[in-house]
Structure formats: C-alpha cells, structure tokens
C-alpha cells in the first residue's frame, strides 16, 4: 500500500473550529461533517485506496472557492479537489487532515456560443452534458472518455482525459481553450479565451493535466466541432495480436487517421461477447475495431482501403457496418468491455501505459509471461491507434495477498512500457497509483523541475499533496541554487 503524507495533528485538533469557519463560508448543506456522509467521498474509482476526509465542502460559487482556499492557506489546511470521483489513479483520494473540495454544485452550462463554436461550462458539468447541450446545433465535444456520462469536465481538465476519438481529435488539452481557476492564495486567474493562442506563457497547457495540484478549476471553455455526417465501423478478427497491431501500423502508415482504432484480446472478446452479443468473432486471438467518420464519400472510400489493408495483414474475418444500428452494436461490446471483464472476476486493476505501436506485439507477449509469474489473468482492451494499453488485471481482493500481487504485476507492466520507450500513463493520470513509479521515467532533476512549477503555484504544498510526486516538494530548498555539477539535489529526502 502506498503511504500518504502524515496527517497534521495540529489541524486535526482544531477540526471543530475549522468546520465552523467553513460553515460561515458555505452555509447549510455546503459543509458535510457527519461520519457516514463523509464516507461517501472516501475514494474515487481506484477503490483499493480509501480515506475518509476530515470534512467535505461543496461550494456553489467562485467567491466561496476563493474564501475557502484563503482560509485553508491561512490555516495551513490541505485541500483535495474532487469532480465526479471517477479517477482511476486515486487523484481525488482524500486526506485524513484535509478538506475535500467537491465541485459537484458547479453544474451549469454558462454559455453556448455557436458562432465561435465553444461552450462555457462550470467544472461539475459532465462531459456528455456538453455534447448534449450543443447537439441541436449539429455540434459536439470530441474527447469522449468511456466514463463520459459521469465524469466532470473539471476532472477531465485535471486529468487531461482522452477517449476513443482522441487519435483524430486530440485529448482534453487540445480542446480546452479557456480555464478560470483559483489559486491556493485565493486569486482568480483566467487563462486563454475564445480566441486562439495567447501572448503569454502557456500556463493553460500545464494547468490541463495537473491533477488538482496547481489550482481549483471554476470554469472551462471548450471548443466544439461540427458533428461528422456519418461513420462506419469495421470489425476485423485476427489470428494473432501481432497481426492486428501490424494492421494498425499499416493503416496509419498509409495516411489514414481513423476516428477510432481499438484492439481487444481473446479474453476481452469472449467476455464482451457473452455480455452484449455484439457478434464478435469468438475464435479470434485479437479483434480490431476501426471507425471511419466523415462524409459518405470519404467513409466508403476509406472503408474499402482499410478492408484491403486488413486482408493484406492476414485478417481472418472483416465486417463493415451497414447501418448506424450495426455500428453501435459493434461498439457496444467494446464499450461494455470493462463491466464484462468485471463479470469474470470480483476485482480488476485497470492499467494505462502507452507504448510505441510497433512494440504492441512484444509487450503483449511479455505480459503473457508475467501472467504465469504472478498467477493472475489479464484481459487487454486498448486504444491501439495511439498505443495506449489498458491491461485489466483480474484479482480477488478477498484472497489474502492478491491485491498486492496484482499491484506488483501492474508495476511490472508499467516498467515494461517505459523500458520499450513508452510512458506510465496515457490518460488516467499518475495520482497515487503510479506516484512511486515516477522515478522509473524521470530522474531527480526532471522531477525537481516539475516540482518547481508546483512551487510557483502552491508554495506551501497544500493542494492535493501526496499525488503525482513520490516525494513532497520542499519549495524553499528547490528554489535555492545549490546544485553543482549535476549532483542530486536531495538524495537525503525521506520518501513516503
């Protein structure tokens, strides 16, 4: 189990006084201090980690967020922002001595600007609600995490979330054009706008994906796009995962960027088919789903090209959707893959490394060997187009030692991703889950540079501490110029 920062006893001792002060800022139901009620917030979707927060505060206005953060700063109280709590990396895991700042009451769409194709939303609005709000204008919001009916746009900003369509349309960071956020000092800062780019440092670029460590997001403006007139999906069965992976590389190599390109392995195919009966080829070792969107002239042209490439790469079966209904059916299995795999096993861990696509075959082979080593099964469902793997490690938390074994297995997979030139996380974030693996990818100087950015925003390290970085930032020391000849700045700092 990962350790979290030691709770501050002085803060805990003042709990009643702190709650009273927060009640003055967010009256009525805005402050939740009952034991049972607080427990509803004890974890996000990384359920293996739980901690009841000292108190939950649900502000309704930016002015309240300002006052809460000013108060917390003045009283050295830690703050953990939370959206919908669907993070898979424990980003919203509370602290025993911390305020859990829930943004769920920020649930309004503020403005729909059709002429400039953007939507201004409060951070608690769900991802899908944005697309729904502009649907009537023939527009939609492109990044589509599978959790889109539940996850908040503020959480998407914090995690830089992706989805099936981000190969072609980009991640959250490529689709957010403005953010209003409050610093831990209680300053309200706006970055970006409805215009393109800025004449200043791209702080919007770092705020997106900062996992709640730099500021509390209170408004988000996203670019929305005209809805493609049509789309078709191809369901392609392969006798080997390598064949499917080579086909993916060939499609991209031929100059086609599909709207989505996903691979499922045998275990995932079987689980999904048993769950939703989407007509998946049960004999196949790998299933490739390719979606092409655009006008019919383009889609039909590209479907034919992809069919040819698939045949050239040894596809055992290939079906192209002939109707919108059939296209949705093809996707139904993929979309239900996580719950379907969930039926095979009481618990699973969802990993999220990205690798160069050419390594997919080799990495999946190594994963098979690791399955034998750890005695646990893995189902693979992944965004093949961008090499973003989602191995699901099946385990049973009720069996002693299995969670730990699954975690060590997961760590090995992520190390493997880095070893072949990839990264620890493609879209779920570091959070607490991958925090202690950061050293695998970055050296001490790399991490110190990132922490100095944290210090520029939050010198006292009160916003979401214990996440992302394997060691707490000590801003005063990081700011000093005492590094000589590339020597490590703090070999002596204690780890969690």
């Amino acid at each position: 189990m990962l350790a979290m920062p030691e709770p501050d006893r002085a803060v805990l001792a003042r709990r009643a006084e702190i709650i009273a002060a927060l009640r003055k800022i967010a009256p009525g139901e805005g402050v939740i201090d009952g034991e049972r009620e607080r427990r509803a917030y004890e974890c996000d979707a990384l359920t293996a980690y739980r901690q009841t927060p000292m108190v939950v505060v649900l502000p309704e206005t930016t002015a309240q967020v300002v006052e809460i953060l000013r108060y917390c700063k003045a009283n050295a109280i830690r703050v953990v922002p939370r959206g919908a709590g669907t993070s898979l990396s424990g980003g919203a895991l509370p602290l025993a001595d911390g305020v859990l700042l829930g943004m769920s009451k920020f649930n309004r769409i503020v403005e729909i600007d059709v002429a400039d194709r953007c939507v201004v939303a409060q951070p608690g609005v769900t991802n899908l609600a944005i697309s729904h709000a502009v649907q009537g204008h023939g527009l939609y919001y492109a990044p589509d995490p599978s959790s889109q009916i539940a996850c908040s746009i503020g959480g998407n900003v914090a995690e830089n979330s992706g989805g099936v369509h981000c190969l072609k349309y980009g991640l959250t960071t490529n689709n957010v054009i403005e953010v209003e956020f409050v610093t831990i000092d209680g300053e309200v800062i706006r970055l970006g706008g409805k215009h393109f780019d800025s004449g200043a440092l791209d702080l919007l670029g770092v705020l997106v994906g900062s996992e709640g460590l730099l500021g509390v997001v209170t408004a988000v403006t996203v670019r929305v796009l005209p809805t493609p007139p049509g789309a078709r999906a191809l369901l392609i069965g392969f006798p080997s995962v390598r064949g499917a992976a080579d086909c993916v590389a060939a499609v991209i190599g031929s100059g086609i960027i599909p709207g989505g390109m996903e691979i499922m392995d045998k275990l995932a195919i079987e689980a999904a088919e048993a769950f939703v009966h989407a007509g998946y080829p049960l004999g196949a070792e790998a299933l490739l789903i390719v979606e092409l969107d655009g006008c019919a002239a383009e889609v039909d042209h590209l479907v034919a090209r992809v069919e040819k490439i698939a045949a050239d790469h040894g596809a055992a079966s290939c079906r192209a959707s002939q109707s919108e209904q059939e296209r949705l059916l093809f996707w139904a299995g993929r979309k239900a893959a996580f719950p379907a795999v969930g039926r095979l096993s009481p618990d699973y861990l969802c990993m999220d490394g990205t690798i160069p696509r050419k390594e997919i075959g080799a990495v999946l082979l190594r994963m098979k060997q690791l399955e034998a080593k750890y005695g646990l099964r893995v189902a693979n469902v992944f965004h093949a187009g961008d090499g973003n793997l989602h191995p699901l490690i099946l385990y049973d938390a009720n069996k002693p030692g299995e969670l730990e074994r699954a975690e060590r297995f997961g760590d090995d997979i992520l190390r493997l991703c880095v070893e072949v030139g990839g990264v620890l996380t493609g879209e779920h974030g570091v959070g607490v889950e991958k925090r202690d693996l950061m050293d695998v990818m970055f050296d001490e100087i790399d991490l110190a540079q990132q922490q100095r950015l944290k210090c520029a925003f939050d010198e006292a390290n009160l916003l979401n501490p214990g996440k992302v970085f394997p060691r707490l930032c000590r801003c005063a020391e990081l700011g000093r110029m005492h590094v000589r000849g590339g020597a490590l700045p703090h070999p002596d700092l204690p780890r969690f």
Partner: protein
Amino acid sequence: MTLHRPHDAREIAEIVRHAGAENHTLEIVAGGSKRAFGRPVRAAQQLNLSKLAGLVSYEPRELVLTARPGAPLADIDEALRAEGQMLAFEPPQWLNLLGGAGTPTLGGVLACNLSGPRRLRAGAARDFILGFSAVNGRGEMFKAGGKVVKNVTGFDLSKLMVGSFGALAILTEVTLKVAPRPETQCTLLLPGLSDAKAFDVMARALNTPHEISAAAHLPELSARRAHLAAEGPLTALRLEGPAPSVAYRAAETEKLFGGGVRLEAEASALFWREVAEVRALLPDGAPLVWRACPTPSRAAAIVAAVREKLPGAEAFYEWGGGLVWLSLDPAEAGPDCGAAVVRGALDGQGHATLVVAPETARASVEVFQPVEPALAALEARVKAGFDPLGLFNPGRMREGV
C-alpha cells in the same frame, strides 16, 4: 560579444553554469530568423544552437519525429514529405515579413508557437509537441513528456516550452507528433464579398461538417496584391482529404455559398503559402504590423473600431477571423505604434502582438499583450522556477519573463 556554438546539451549546460557564476545573460538563437520578432534582447553573450541540428529519429508509422532544435525547418519538411507526412500546424514562413535574415529552424518555430492556416482546424504548434530535453537556468539537463503520441505522466511542461521565447530553458531535443499529408486539397474562392458578408460565410462554413481546413478573407487591397491579382475582395475556404471526399465536400460547400473559382492542388497550396507568409498581402514595406487574435466573431467589429481612430489601418483575416493582420500608418499610430488603440478595440478578449516595428519601438512598446497583475506575478514565479537568475533572453517577452 562572446558567441557560443555548442554541439550538445552538455556543452550548453556548462555555458549556462558559467553564465550563472559570472552573472551574465544569454541571448538564445537558433537560425536567427526570428531575432526581429519580440522585444530586442540585450544580453552579454549569444548562445547559438545552429550546431545542434539534425533529425534524431523519425518513425512515420508511429507519427513521431525527434529532432534537435537547430534543425532547419526545410530539412524537417523534406524528411516528412518523403514519407507523405507533415507538421499539421503548418508552420508559416516569416522570412519576408521579418526582414529576410536567418534560417527558420524547428526550435525557433516552437519557441514562438507559430502556426499557419491549418491552426484553425488542426491546432497550434503547442498541440503537437510530445516531449523535450532542455537545459534550465541552473545549468541542469532535464527532460519532460515522452516520445509516444499519448501521455499524461507528470506536468505537461512541453506545452509551456512552446511559445516561451526561450525564456525558460534551452531546448536540446524535441519530439513532435506528425500527421499524414492529405491526399489532395482544393480552395474555393468566393469573390466580391463585403467584410460583413465574408464573416458570415466563414462562420457558417466552419459550422458545416465539411471540415474546412483554412478560411481567410482578403479585402480588396490585399486581394489585389496577391499573386492572383484579384479585382476585388476574396474569401477563401480550403478543403483537404482523400480525392473523392474533397470533390464531394467542395461541391456541397459551393451549393451553400455559391460557386466561385476553384484552386486545385498546387494552386491551392501556393495561395495558402502566400497567406501564411503575410508580407505580400500588406502594403509594400509596411513598417508597422500587428497580429491580433480576437474572438473570431468579433474580428470585423474590432478592425472597424481600429479604423475609426486610425483611418489608415488595413487588415486581412485568417483562421475564420481568429487571426487579423493589421498594418498601421506610423504617423497616425504615434509613439506606442497603435498599441492602445488595437488593444483597446480587443477589450480584453484576445491578444495582439506587434510583429513588425523598428527596433527602438519594440524596445519601448509592450510587444506582447500585457497580462493582469496576478497572472504576471505567477508568470514571474514560473520563470524563476526555470531560470532563477534571469539568464535567458532577458526582456524578450516582457520584463520579468
């Protein structure tokens, strides 16, 4: 002035540590073609990155390219072209605009976050950087991001590097996401539209699903100067993609907005190159040029507001109105080069950069859009986190950064 020409990151780190110890500042230069862009830098020494050139690796099927910052853009372009790929943000060539000196490099384009006509649809330079290595102001070599197309591990420092004008760290290697070159393109030219009508057409066209990849409006004077030498205003919409798709979308777009002239393939590419290069479309030798990025739907109103105070102002529009190139008459503009008028017209919604002006003017006028005090203080703290002694490109963006 001492001139350093390091060959690798290690040498750069040494030069920086030395500069820190001796307390002298450094101007960071790659090809030198953007030296006239931004506020003039007064530094004790120059650090030239032109020896840090060349591709490090390029894997077309991964859509990933790693190169060193001194690599000439032309070389990168050639390598990509050979594989049927491109930089999707379409880096514009500003040699003529900025006076013709130097060689545009990859590092320079990234440091200035310059994007061309396709920015409208595909995103800016900042949207395509995946990772980098650099030397910070402490003389430490560090890296951030990765070499795969999708990554959220740690803070996204890569985006921060793009558009930082060398004020934070010296890039030593960058990894970019590249894209397939569209099979073909065509441009619909709609002649004779008034500014108001043109904006309406562009906004409506961009709201269709026809995937317009560039939209510009050249009022009469600009259109006359273009190599097409049109007689009146030109509104241009570009479509790219597989041939059958482009043919269909072009026909559909024409149904909506009326048939004009079609520029096919090469002719279309040539037209947009000229738009991206800017200079030819402005008055001959225009001495004061602003680049404003307003809320697109307000572009025409903003130019009208500028003209009311500065009647000699002339403009043309890219990015469907999201980019306005403004040429001002220096006599009318006065000592601030028109900054107060242009920025007043933007009214806090957007930003304006003084791209062309005499060096003395660029030293005294805020070249980049000033920011609110809280943000300025934050920027200064961020700068100090990278370059605590203020060694790199002092004052290039603004004082304190």
